């Protein structure tokens, strides 16, 4: 099956993590259209760029990933947001899912894990709609 190339907004307060996730998405054939390093910036860039997919860090200075997810999904219920979380953040992941995130991957983000989660989300929410 030909992979669907997606436009992606990468949200993470660590520049290294931004680079890392962007490189992985690139390898998977997707296009990173924007970077944001906190929740408020993520909301603004989402509205501006309208990406197909967002990877969202949870703990960030200022507006965190959960609040950002909530704000984006409120306006755009079909937004595809994948949370990037650490071990021990299950409660926060739960809150993000309840706020409308579609999935999550655990840090350190590895290519296969990211690929599987993106594929699942694409199969479920992109191809069928």
């Amino acid at each position, binding site marked *: 099956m030909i992979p669907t190339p997606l436009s992606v907004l990468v949200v993470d*307060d*660590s*520049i*290294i*993590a931004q*680079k*890392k996730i962007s*490189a992985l998405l690139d390898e998977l054939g997707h296009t990173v259209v924007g970077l944001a390093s906190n929740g408020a910036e993520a909301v603004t860039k989402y509205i501006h760029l309208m990406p197909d997919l967002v990877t969202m860090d949870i*703990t960030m*200075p200022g507006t965190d990933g959960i609040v950002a997810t909530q704000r984006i999904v409120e306006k755009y219920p079909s937004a595809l947001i994948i949370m990037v979380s650490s071990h*021990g*953040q*299950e*409660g926060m*992941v*739960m809150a993000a*899912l*309840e706020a409308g995130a*579609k*999935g*999550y991957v655990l840090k*350190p983000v590895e290519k296969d894990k990211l690929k599987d989660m993106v594929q*699942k*989300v694409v*199969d*479920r929410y992109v191809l069928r709609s």
Partner: protein
Amino acid sequence: MTAVSIVFIVMGNGYLVQPYSANAIITVVVNIMYISAFFWASSAKSVSFHHTMREAQKKAEAAREEAVLALRQVAMLLDNSGQGFLFFGPDMMVSGRYSRACVSILGREPAGRNVAELLFPGNDDMGGLMSRSVAGACAAAAQGDVIRAEVFLSLIPKDIDVDGKSLEAQYIAVDGGVMLVLSDVSDRKSLNAAIASEQRRMEMILTAVTDRDDFFSAIDEFRAFVAEGAAAWREKTVPDIYRAVHTFKGTFNQFSFKTLPAALHDTEARLREVMDGGGGQSIADVADLVFATEWGAILDDDLSIVSEALGADFITRKGVVSLDPELAVRFERFAANHLQAGDLSQEERGVLVELSSIRMAPLRHALMDFNRLTRQISQRLDKEVAPLQVIGDDVRVDPDRFGPFMRSLGHIFRNAVDHGIEHPDDREDAGKSRAGNIVCKVAYDSQGLTLVISDDGRGIDAEALRQRAALRFPGEGAETWDLADLVFKDGLSSRDEASAWSGRGVGMAAVRAACAALGGDVDVSTEAGQGTTFVFRFPAMSARVAA
């Protein structure tokens, strides 16, 4: 047979609506003859209606029996697979159908009970997380969103300890609820635990031999702590005793002690609760709490591992034919006094200089000893760290005086590996070597002793730390603290949860306290993505350069 007849009739009718050609009429007649012949043939075989019905009934009965047998076989398979299968709905109540193994695995009949209560008894937080997961999964499944259901269910822990057993759980969204598949993996787990404990035992024995001095001085220090008991803490504060416990935990962890670090960890956790509880308890009560544990017995138990392997007198002799420490001090004083005298030969002077620093130990060795710690931690965190580089002057220090400070440095190295050094892939992405580097520089001049420890990790996010400090210590003006204030603040960690390796944010405070006890001070600088550097300065006379 009936179907064949109908085809004939339809065909006949088809022809009948056509204009009545001779051919057509013949065809119809032939068809009718075929049908009649068919019915005649059937009756000729004497197949009675009653008989046909009985046959059908028999077949249905057989099919039903077969289905029941199949169901029984499935139940048998499930019952004998050794795995527990059960169902529960969004109300978390386990249904009446479950495989037999559930009872032995869970230690009770699961039907009608709350599944979270069965898996995580007494853990309300986990129960809450689980019921939110199940609610989310059931809602998603009801909308046909299997992926979302799966995502929600994946948040429930899969490795569970129930009733003294280690279980592996699998959660599958099914119609109107969740199927839970349980496997008892205790045997596998206990085998793994046995291997790990054997490894730790070997590490501890090795440490006792290779790191004799630190090993025994840590034991001496801990024995003194235990001997002095609660009384020694009357004038101190709860954070003081907390720091002491925390530092001992780190030290004995470093030496791969079996039980002591875990016991200290428990005590530390209880002290944390006391401190988070608003400090209503007096230091006397808290100290009693700490010394309620039979520390001496735990220490002896752990040490028996070493004496069994290396002989009982290894512990009592402390690994060497040693000089009585009091005698060593007397030798030093004697040497120092006689060095003042002017008329000494070259040889006499040389011997007296050696004697005057008989107990002094090279700082370089003490620093190199942290290699094992950084290696252990990096292995467990799947990171890579190059061997420690120790450069600079060959300085010797009094181990009795510098011991507590040197041991506190474990926190610096531990944090460097845990928080500073990135994962190898991340380092490569950032254009660094896959292995992190930690460098120690020692310098000694008329100003005193300087020790610099730097890593080339990700650096400290001062802003994040400041925000955390402002939240944790409201009203203390954390917004204006500098990096050193933040890094060395008691009770402030850059992580949410204390891991077994990184601390709870007290370790760094212990480092500064130990440094100050020697009359020294410490400064820290950091650069995002480039690393962190600690600079310790001690007044002259606290050390000496090797002759």
